């Protein structure tokens, strides 16, 4: 195969053509001549010591498609509880956190408006971000096996198969493809905690933050009731003991839960959003 040169996001390249003037300008022939002479000189110098015996090296077993992480799947079951969300409050340093832990529920992603009167839903929160200009989903997104959005904009991911959920951080996750093949769900968001270590993100304004987390082996959504910077929120999750976390849509984004006595508790206050690709992570009664 011919070697394709690298490309950055500010370039275009006509495939199979000579570039059509849209890509990089051609370098003059004498530049290539100098580059060639220098390359030959470097090659001669580099090969000279190779006459000495080399120590054997371990074979490279990595492949381009090897996943970066080993995913662990979770579902919260407790036979002493009905299908419900247990809400607990805690204070870490000065930050008040509210922890929503769904029990005996099936997770899925939902596209479009959610019916707040649907009592089968015990926990719902907006999942992937939407673009402000065209309302489309940011980053890769698979809904019931159907890919609705592509692209790597955020390294955090959540995947759902057969009622089980996993959260992780990776640029390359085979779960996107697996979700399309097996009718699963997949979305991307900002990573917050990876293997118990805080993941730094570019600073943003202080806001009400919300994250999908693994805390003590249980899947939960943790929200803060004060405005806080993204990195400060992530650091607080680590102090709480969260092992994996990705952010969810924060601010006043829509969301609610139902407790064991059927009481409905809101996570956000914006209920009027009606974008075509508005999406939630939803936990339904089993």
């Amino acid at each position, binding site marked *: 195969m011919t070697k394709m040169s690298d490309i950055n996001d500010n370039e275009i390249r006509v495939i199979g053509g000579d570039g059509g003037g849209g890509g990089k300008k051609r370098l003059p022939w004498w530049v290539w001549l100098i580059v060639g002479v220098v390359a030959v000189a470097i090659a001669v110098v580099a090969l000279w010591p190779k006459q000495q015996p080399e120590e054997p090296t371990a074979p490279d077993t990595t492949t381009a498609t090897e996943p970066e992480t080993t995913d662990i799947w979770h579902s919260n079951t407790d036979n002493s509880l009905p299908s419900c969300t247990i809400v607990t409050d805690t204070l870490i340093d000065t930050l008040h956190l509210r922890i929503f832990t769904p029990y005996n529920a099936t997770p899925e992603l939902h596209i479009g408006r959610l019916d707040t009167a649907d009592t089968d839903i015990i926990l719902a929160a907006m999942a992937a971000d939407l673009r402000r200009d*065209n309302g489309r989903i940011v980053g890769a997104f698979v809904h019931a096996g159907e890919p609705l959005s592509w692209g790597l904009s955020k390294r955090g991911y959540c995947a759902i198969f057969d009622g089980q959920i996993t959260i992780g951080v990776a640029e390359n996750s085979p779960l996107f493809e697996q979700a399309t093949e097996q009718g699963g769900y997949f979305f991307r968001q900002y990573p917050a905690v990876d293997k118990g270590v805080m993941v730094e993100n570019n600073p943003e304004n202080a806001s009400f933050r919300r994250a999908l987390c693994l805390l003590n082996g249980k899947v939960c959504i943790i929200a803060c009731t004060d405005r806080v910077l993204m990195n400060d929120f992530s650091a607080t999750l680590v102090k709480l003991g969260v092992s994996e976390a990705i952010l969810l849509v924060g601010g006043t984004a829509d969301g609610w839960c139902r407790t064991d006595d059927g009481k409905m508790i809101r996570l956000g206050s914006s209920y009027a959003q009606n974008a075509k690709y508005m999406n939630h992570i939803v936990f339904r009664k089993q």
Partner: protein
Amino acid sequence: MVISTSVDLMRVASEDIVFISSDGNYSSFVFTYGESRVVTMQLGQVERLLAEQLAHSGADFIRIGKSLIINRNFISYINLPKQQLVLSDGHSSSHSLTASKEALKQLKELIEKGLNK
């Protein structure tokens, strides 16, 4: 064109490909008839296959940045301030994509010049 990986093979008419986008080690093909398909192949590998298998019509495809290959025949709208690129077949299929302003500016100039058409 034919795209073959270790686990599957896809045979498709190049004129049916609207665009190909990347998600890490995967590439998603979006077709005029509304379907899409994900293959385990990096976008750079797809680009090489396009160049090798489509000797003449390969020039219909344009790599835009790290994560997108488009079929130039479906370009219907470019908006630089909004960084918006719309690909459409004129009736049934329309896709709004985003790219950097600089890349879209180069694409706009390329189309205006009408080279390699």
